[in-house]
């Protein structure tokens, strides 16, 4: 008989790296992610000095500027705890690109690699690491589409975790949309450097999502959500996308963190 596989210790503490978009534009998503983590019994530490992973400058051709900003985050996670990020593409930036960004400096590179190894995207953390039991969640029937950010899907495998979380939620029917894995047209500065192309991509994505007849769609990336929801608001249609953490908090009937535990 083979020995029982020892269960991985479930962490008690986690860091929360909110990302600049969540901090300034989508604080609800951050609060909801923290609420879910606390509901799971974790203590969440939000390092006060955090700002941004550096991705916007990095992808636009200003890696030096990105490096300075990333450098300012390196000292913020001294404990060996997981670093939960409610945005797959930012998690991907830290996980894949920080080690490269700091490759020229052995000391910084070591720290960047340490952080990179602890970074985990929120959904992946909830279903993969925590294995949070979602069976008791609200089972009111709802049809939901899933949009995965491209870099997150490729770098952090968020299609798997996104589908897993929706599949584990009772009452939730996943509505597959046409060209599901195609980009929503955000792409950071791409959306303003090539506005017509970006708009065409966002338009097609939303048409495909709307065609499923879903009542909402979820994503683990606030960049995509800003793009899609801003487009929907201009269209004047009621459909909106939600951060997966907000959807999850609601289905789990957890009170918002602001109302206390």
């Amino acid at each position, binding site marked *: 008989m083979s020995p029982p596989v020892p269960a991985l210790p479930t962490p008690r503490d986690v860091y929360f790296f909110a990302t*600049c978009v969540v*901090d300034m*534009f989508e604080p609800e998503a951050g609060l909801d992610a923290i609420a879910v983590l*606390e509901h799971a019994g974790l203590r969440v530490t939000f390092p006060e000095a*955090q700002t941004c992973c550096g991705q916007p400058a990095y992808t636009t*051709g200003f890696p030096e500027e990105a490096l300075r900003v990333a450098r300012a985050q390196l000292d913020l996670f001294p404990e060996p705890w997981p670093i939960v990020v409610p945005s797959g593409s930012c998690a991907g930036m830290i996980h894949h690109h920080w080690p490269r960004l700091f490759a020229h400096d052995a000391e910084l590179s070591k720290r960047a690699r340490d952080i990179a190894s602890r970074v985990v995207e929120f959904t992946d953390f909830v279903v993969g690491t925590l294995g949070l039991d979602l069976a008791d969640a609200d089972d009111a029937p709802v049809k939901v589409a899933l949009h995965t950010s491209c870099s997150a899907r*490729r770098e952090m495998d968020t299609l798997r975790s996104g589908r897993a979380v929706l599949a584990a939620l009772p009452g939730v029917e996943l509505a597959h949309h046409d060209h599901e894995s195609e980009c929503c047209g955000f792409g950071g500065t791409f959306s303003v450097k090539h506005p017509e192309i970006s708009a065409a*991509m966002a338009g097609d994505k939303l048409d495909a999502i709307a065609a499923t007849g879903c009542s909402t769609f979820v994503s683990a990336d606030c960049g995509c959500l800003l793009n899609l929801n801003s487009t929907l608001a201009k269209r004047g249609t009621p459909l909106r996308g939600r951060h997966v953490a907000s959807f999850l908090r609601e289905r789990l009937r957890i009170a918002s963190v602001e109302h206390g535990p």
Partner: protein
Amino acid sequence: MSAVRPVADPLAFKDNARIVVADPVLRRSFRGAMDFLTDKRAAQFPDVAGFNRLRALGESIRQYALANLPQLLGQLEERLAERGVHVHWAENAEDANRLFLEIAQRHDAKLMVKGKSMVSEEIELNHRMAEHGIDCVETDMGEYILQLDHDRPSHIIMPAIHKTKEDVARIFAEHIPGAGYTEDVNELIAIGRRALRDKFATAKIGVSGVNFLVAETGSIVLVENEGNGRLSTTVPDVHIAITGIEKVIAKLEHVAPLFTLLTRSATGQAVTTYLNVISGPRREGEKDGPREQHLILLDNGRTQAYREERFRATLQCIRCGACMNHCPVYARVGGLSYGTTYPGPIGAIISPHLMNLESTRDLPTASSLCGACGEVCPVGIPIPDLLMRLREAARHDEPVAQQRKALKGQGGARRMLEVAAWKGWRLVYANSRIYRLVTWLATRCRRLLPGRQAGWTGTRVALRPAPRSLRERLAQRRPTPIPMDDTSKPAA
């Protein structure tokens, strides 16, 4: 295709794209064509692990070849010379065209038949030859249609993918004597083939491109479906092949994996109808084949990509076109919008070396970096990384880290306003005190932000910060009770 033709200049990319994106008929037709190609490819690579293994092999074959490029080119030239093939080196388009002209004049040739060759497009062979009274006829059906219509290829594998069958019917009826108007596709192909047969029989020179050059055997490998490549390289007395210097590979056994990666990625075919392995001109006692054979090896900026380690992977390309077929930007703007010989993701990474980074500066930014191209590339070119490096080089006048020399047109997209904006961004985001002040102010003044934000608000509502930032809201929350057995600090 709509009445307005995209301008053949990469600086016109944004204008071209705007027109195409606004045309629903074109959009539907591109989408349909790309879906067809991506589905066919997907059917050829049913299992991801298998694809990844084959791709790793293809990648290493190409990397090995590039790592040994000078030696392999030397070996290739020797082997070809032994087989009686004349090898020529062309530094740029002008050199290459001069070589063509010299050979044509020596043979007093007024007609050339040409199999599909993107490198010949790159040097604008047809136009240059026409200036000297030499008719260079395209024999690939797609290219032939375009030539009749004075149009340009919009895809490296399916050059006329932007033409409908109605377009072709009109073009043939107008330009081929005796051809009536028909929209029957088989009939149209038959008309085109008949018109081309005569040309093969009378041309003194046949021109072709090359898919792979094998250094150890001195073989010129040509992959095709229509048979026009075989005819162009065997019927006329003289065969001239032209290709870029990066096409060389070390061994004959390297052809098989690259061939299968190419055909499956390009057209979703397990094999093509023809695979030509050309090993020199007609020998004593042989009854057919060209009497004279030439290979023109073109640099035209490739050595710049070769010189710079961080751009070298660009040259791994085997021109399968899969990156275009999967690109959401290409699918919306079409190939002609790019205004370059090579459109789509491969065009965006190679054109800056072939032309210069200044005139091609809008191509590397024309990507959301979604990564679809890199995911399907059969030789593992990290296209999104290369796009980012080109963006960087276009925004810095001096060679950046890990760059040996400035690229042609380095700094071609550098604008003081953008540089200043990122410097300001760095100042704020690298300093948490300033950052907190700025977010505090931005959230307070959210209503004062402009309702029109260039580039963003055309189809979206304006971006406005939330009334309070996450960190403020966390700071205001009721403190969570701290478990007695622990003193470490909980959230906020």
